[in-house]
C-alpha cells in the first residue's frame, strides 16, 4: 500500500496541483515560514501536522494570497500564481476554509452558498434577482444537501450552531467546481458525531479534487489523507505515509511531547 502510493507520487510528476519552491514568510523579525518546498499531485490528499505556531495556517495564507509570501514561488497546476491577488487564485480552482469560521452573518445559508457558486462564474455584478432555476442556485441546493444543511436552507447564518457553521464553512469551499482545497482545522470544536460526518464528506469528495488538511485530531487527519507533512517552527521537517508518521519517534517527540511514561 505504502509502496504503491509512493510510486503513484513519483509517476505523477509533471501533473502537480500545487508546487511550492522555497516559500518563506517573515513578519518583521519573526520567521513564520522558511524554505518550504512541497509537491502535491492532482487529486492527492495531504495532511499537514504540527504544533501550534508551526506555520501551518501561514502556509495556507501564502498559498491563497491572504498574506503574500516574502520569498519563493507558488505554482498551481503548472501556472505561477505567486503574484496573483487572492480572487484570481480562487477563480483558477483553489479554495480554502478557515480555522475560525469566516461567514456572512447577515445572509441565509442558501444565499451564502449561492454567492460561493457565483463567485467563480460570470454575472457577479448582476442587478437581477437569481431565479430558483439559476444554474448557480441549483448548484447551491445540491451542495446544501451534500453537507446536510438542507433543514437550515433559509436560516440566518448568525443563528446557526457552531457545528452547523463549520459545515457551512466546508460548503463554501466545495462550491464552484474546485480543483484543490485547503482545509484549516475543519473538525475544530465538532462533536464525535459531527467528526464522523466530516470524515464521510471528505471521503465522498470526487477523486479529482485534491486537498491539504490541517488537523490536530490525528484520528481524523490520518483517516482522510494519503500522505502527511510535518511542520515545526516554520519548516517542513518530515514527510511520509500516515503509518510512518505515526510510528516516527522524532514526530512523537515534537508533536506529542514524547512517549508517555
Amino acid at each position, binding site marked *: 500500500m505504502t509502496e504503491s502510493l509512493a510510486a503513484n507520487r513519483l509517476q505523477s510528476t509533471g501533473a502537480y496541483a500545487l508546487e511550492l519552491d522555497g516559500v518563506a514568510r517573515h513578519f518583521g523579525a519573526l520567521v513564520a515560514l522558511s524554505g518550504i518546498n512541497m509537491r502535491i499531485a492532482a487529486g492527492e490528499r495531504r495532511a499537514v501536522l504540527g504544533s501550534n505556531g508551526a506555520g501551518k495556517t501561514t502556509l495556507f495564507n501564502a498559498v*491563497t494570497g*491572504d498574506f503574500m509570501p516574502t520569498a519563493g514561488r507558488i505554482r498551481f497546476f503548472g501556472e505561477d500564481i505567486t503574484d496573483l*491577488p*487572492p*480572487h484570481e487564485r*480562487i*477563480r483558477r480552482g483553489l*479554495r*480554502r476554509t*478557515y480555522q475560525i469560521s*469566516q*461567514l*456572512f*452573518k*447577515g*445572509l441565509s445559508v442558501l*444565499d*451564502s452558498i*449561492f*454567492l*460561493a457558486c*457565483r*463567485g*467563480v462564474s460570470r*454575472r*457577479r*455584478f*448582476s*442587478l*437581477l*434577482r*437569481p431565479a430558483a432555476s439559476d444554474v448557480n442556485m441549483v448548484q447551491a441546493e445540491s451542495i446544501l444537501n451534500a453537507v446536510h444543511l438542507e433543514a437550515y436552507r433559509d436560516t440566518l447564518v448568525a443563528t446557526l450552531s457552531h457545528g452547523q457553521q463549520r459545515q457551512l464553512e466546508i460548503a*463554501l469551499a466545495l*462550491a*464552484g467546481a474546485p480543483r484543490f482545497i485547503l482545509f484549516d482545522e475543519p473538525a475544530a470544536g465538532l462533536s464525535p458525531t459531527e467528526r464522523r460526518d466530516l470524515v464521510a464528506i471528505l471521503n465522498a469528495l470526487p477523486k479529482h479534487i485534491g486537498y491539504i488538511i490541517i488537523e490536530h485530531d490525528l484520528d481524523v487527519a490520518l483517516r482522510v489523507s494519503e500522505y502527511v507533512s510535518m511542520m515545526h517552527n516554520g519548516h517542513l521537517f518530515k514527510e511520509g505515509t500516515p503509518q510512518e508518521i505515526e510510528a516516527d519517534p522524532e514526530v512523537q517527540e515534537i508533536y506529542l511531547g514524547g512517549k508517555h511514561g
Partner: protein
Amino acid sequence: MSLAIATNNAATQRNWLEKLGPGHIILGTALVLYPLVASDFFLTQIGGYSLIFGMLGLSLMLLAGYGGMVSLAQITVAGISAYAIAILGNNNSNVLGFGWPWWLAVPFAVVAAALASALIGWISVRTEGIYTIMITLAIATATYYFAQQNYAIFNGHSGYAGIRAPVFWGVNWRDARPFYYLCLGLSVLSYAGVLYGSRSTFGMTLQAIRDNPRRMRALGYHVTAHKVFAWLLAGVIAGLAGVLLVWFNGRVSPGTIGVDAAIDVLIIAVIGGLRHPIGPFLGALVVVLMQTFAIDIVGAERFNTLIGLVFLVIVFVSPDGILGLWGRIKPHLAQESLRPGP
C-alpha cells in the same frame, strides 16, 4: 387537474399583491392623494423637499446599510449634478451656460455625478469604518472650498442662479403639483430599485462584503470593484436628487454642498434607520418638518436646540432610528389587536 391549475394561478396572483404588501399599497395611495389635501407650501417645501433629501439619504443607506461604508460626500455628488445642470443648461449668472435642453443636460449631469461618486468610492474604499467617514468628509470639504474659490467653472461664492425646471408635455414642472409628482416618481423608482436590488446577486455580494470581505476574496470576488460599483449606483440616486434640488432651489452655490448639508444627510439616514430603504424617507420627513417648524415653536434663538434634542431622543430610545422604533412598537400593536373589542 384543472382545479389545481386554477388554484395555482390564484396563488400566483395573490403572491404578487402580497409581495407588494399592505404597507406599500396604503403608503403609495396616501402619497398619490396627498396633493388633494396639501397646500402648495406643504407640497413642495415639505413633500418635495423631504423626497429629495430622502433620495440623498437613500443613496447613503445603500452604501452604509448594505455595504458598511458611511459616506459624508453624498451631498457633494448631488452638488456635482446640480452644478452640471446649471452649467450645461440655462442660468442668469453670465459665467458658463451652454443652453442644452433638459433631456441632454439631465443624463449628462447624472452620469457625471455617478462617475464622481465612483471616483470618491475608489479613493475611500481603501479605508474602513471611521476612516471612511473622515476621508469622505475631507473630500466634501475640499469640494466645497474649491467651488467657493473657483470662479471660472463654479462662479465662486455666488454660484449659479436663475435655473428653471423644464416645461414639456405642456406641463411646467416647477409648479407645485407637477414638481411633487416628479419628486415622488423618482423617489419611488429609486426606492423600488434599491429594494429589489437588495436581493439581487449584486445586492447580496455587497452585504456579504460588508459582513466579511476576506471571505469574499476567498470566494473569487474582487472586493474593491464591487464596492466601487456600489458607489456608482449610489451616485446615480444622489445625482437624480441633485437635479431635483437645483430645480427646487432655482440656484446652486457652495452653500448647497457645505458641511452642514453633508451632516444633514447623515442625520437623515441615521434618524430614519439604515436597515430598510424606507428609513431615509422617514428620516427626511422628520428632519424637514423639524427644520421648518421648530422656529415657530421655540423661536429663532432656540430652534437648533430643539432639533438637536429630538434627534438625541430618537437615537437614545432606538439606536436603529425610526425603523427600529417601529419594530419595537409593532409587536405591541399586534397584541392589542388580538384582544377582544369593548
